[in-house]
């Protein structure tokens, strides 16, 4: 009874439109990343593996700067996962946590809360990478 009432008044989201936008924006992020890798490896004359480090740092800087200027939250509302899943989402979560807790001071605010949102990514990434790395090292010797 209650559930049907809730469903009746829940605003209907256009799922297909969200998914098409996420598909296109995510694809454009991939093209931008590949273009940055090519540009850096051409200008600085370095292998593409090193250029991908430059690319990631550039995208993190752009993500932080757009969050500071206040554009990013509006864009994320429209694009959804198209900007959350790429590395810009990681930068956005750290930057917005730092901005939100800035008024509580340097140590107890920024320092203690910077990883409030991004911390789960790092914790689960490190734990799963350790377990899977152990499996790969024990069974394959890291050979493949």
């Amino acid at each position, binding site marked *: 009874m209650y559930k049907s009432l809730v469903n009746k008044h829940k605003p209907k*989201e256009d799922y297909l439109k969200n998914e098409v936008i996420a598909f*296109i924006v995510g694809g454009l992020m*991939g*093209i931008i990343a590949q*273009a940055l890798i090519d540009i850096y490896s051409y200008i600085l004359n370095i292998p593409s593996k090193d250029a991908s480090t430059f690319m990631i740092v550039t995208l993190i800087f752009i993500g932080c700067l757009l969050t500071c200027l206040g554009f990013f939250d509006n864009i994320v509302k429209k694009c959804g996962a*198209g900007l959350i899943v*790429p590395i810009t989402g990681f930068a956005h979560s750290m930057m917005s946590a730092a901005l939100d807790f800035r008024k509580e001071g340097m140590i107890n605010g920024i320092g203690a809360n910077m990883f409030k949102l991004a911390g*789960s990514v790092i914790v689960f990434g490190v734990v799963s*990478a350790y377990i899977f790395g152990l499996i790969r090292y024990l069974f394959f010797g*890291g050979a493949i």
Partner: protein
Amino acid sequence: MIYFNAFIFCAVVCLIGQIILDHTSLTAGHVTTIFVVTGAFLDIFSIYDKFVLYAGGGACVPITSFGHSLIHGAIESAKNNGFIGLLMGMFDLTASGITAAIVFSFILSFIFKPKD
């Protein structure tokens, strides 16, 4: 051709993320965490390395490549140092991204005021 592959790979990963966001009650934090664990899992059999060769920058930019880089650095260091290398090399490849994110957001949070 690699630009087309980069578009398709990154777009499909983001599409999966959007489908999870829309049709379940999971938040953006859950989605990114799931993708990091998936990226680390796919590296047990070096599947993600093939994606990187195939899609280039398109495979480097989703958060799945964060898990891939973590396990890749750990394995690379374990080859030289044995078991303890798994702990020593965990952040070898991702250190640049994490350090950049910390430094930029710390400095920029002094310059800008939060907008709401």
